[in-house]
């Protein structure tokens, strides 16, 4: 159904500077990337009216490149199709390529962007767990300059994030990892494609023989934000992996998460599946 556009504007500034200037000076100005989240909310009648500033055509905000420390830089307007197809991503950060495939069908992947996915701040988003597992840093940009923080610090609550007025998500930086990490990404949704996640695990483990040298367990859709399961990680880090240790970690998952009942699933289901996914991942290292 045709959306009601009273009070809405969408402008497409030609340059990054102009976009940042508008975002800084106009209190009703908000960034607009591919539109795959915002247009849905608009059509449902729930998008706040305002002046939306399209970043789509701004070249500096597109592209994937290696940084000078061997990590990977993904500019905010990189589409998930580009992430899915990128040999750089597939090589070093395969969970992100897997996440890209989960973001709707091909048409959605072509226009959905990593910056938009992050800034939409949904705990059910598909790329954030992978970003957490990869110790991603996020770079924010405004007319006042750039600032960086660990991505894990960015989301503070349900749909809340550390984004100052006039700021946009400019890029995501994935630091290089030492060789030897094993990844496991699994999204459990309502169906096999085009599904909003009920539970999403992005996990990585670095083994030293039978010992866990280091581990990352990141879960989505089980709390107001995506979370690192620190208690579960602590239960296995620098320990010798065994069924007992895995059981401890599985139990500890419950202290890291706060799932709810909603339109798609139940807290009980989410808790159980989150635990099962973590256990299954760790068991594969036994």
């Amino acid at each position, binding site marked *: 159904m045709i959306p009601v556009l009273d009070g809405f*504007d969408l402008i497409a500034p030609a340059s990054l500077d102009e976009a940042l200037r508008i975002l800084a000076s106009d209190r009703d100005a908000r960034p607009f990337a591919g539109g795959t989240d915002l247009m849905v909310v608009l*059509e449902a009648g729930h998008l706040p009216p305002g002046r939306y500033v*399209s970043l789509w055509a701004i070249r500096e905000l597109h592209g994937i490149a290696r940084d000078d420390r061997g990590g990977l830089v993904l500019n905010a307007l990189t589409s998930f199709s580009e992430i899915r197809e990128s040999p750089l991503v597939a090589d070093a950060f395969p969970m992100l390529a897997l996440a890209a495939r989960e973001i709707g*069908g091909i*048409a959605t992947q*072509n*226009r959905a962007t990593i910056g938009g996915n992050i800034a939409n701040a949904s705990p059910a988003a598909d790329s954030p767990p992978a970003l957490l597992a990869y110790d991603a840093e996020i770079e924010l940009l405004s007319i006042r300059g750039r600032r960086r923080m660990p991505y894990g610090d960015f989301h503070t609550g349900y749909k809340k994030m550390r984004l100052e007025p006039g700021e946009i998500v400019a890029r995501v930086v994935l630091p290089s990892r030492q060789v030897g990490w094993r990844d496991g990404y699994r999204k459990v949704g309502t169906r*096999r*494609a085009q599904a909003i996640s009920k539970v999403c695990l992005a996990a990585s483990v670095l083994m030293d023989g039978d010992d866990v040298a280091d581990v990352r367990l990141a879960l989505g859709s089980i709390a107001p934000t995506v979370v690192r399961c620190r208690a579960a990680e602590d239960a296995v880090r620098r320990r010798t992996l065994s069924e007992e240790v895995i059981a401890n970690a599985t139990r500890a998952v419950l202290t890291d998460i706060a799932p709810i009942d909603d339109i798609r699933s139940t807290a009980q289901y989410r808790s159980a599946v989150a635990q099962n996914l973590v256990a299954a991942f760790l068991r594969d290292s036994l």
Partner: protein
Amino acid sequence: MTATPARIECTINGEPRALEGHPMSRLLDALRAAGLTGTKEGCGEGECGACAVLLDGTLVNSCLTPLAHASRAAITTIEGLAIREQLHAVQQSFLECGGAQCGICTPGMVLAAVDLLRRVPNPTEDDVRAGLAGNLCRCTGYMRIFAAVLDACRRMPATNAER
């Protein structure tokens, strides 16, 4: 505030066109108002793919594409596939394999298939399933559609693949 209506210049099915409307209005509505009613609205949420078109060579859901994003774009709608009365290979295969029943998902499905075959010229059935996962069909159960896409792939010469 009310936006000034935009005049968006683009190319549709090879012809220069100007679409007028609110910059945040849906490309879907602009296309249909311009007489290109082959592109359909099934859900308005980007879930069903009935509104899919090709924009600068990539498949997009036109219900989620703001008109402003069509600026200087080359758009292909279902009306642009056949060359006069000569059907595109994908259309011919759909016809022969029974890939269309009620037809409402068909324009988006055909364009999704065209897009898939450009990206993956020799798809397996799994590739076809994944390539069409964003296009919902309530009538067929997808079986005749998979058959049609694999049939089109066999019949397509290189020139057709580039169209």
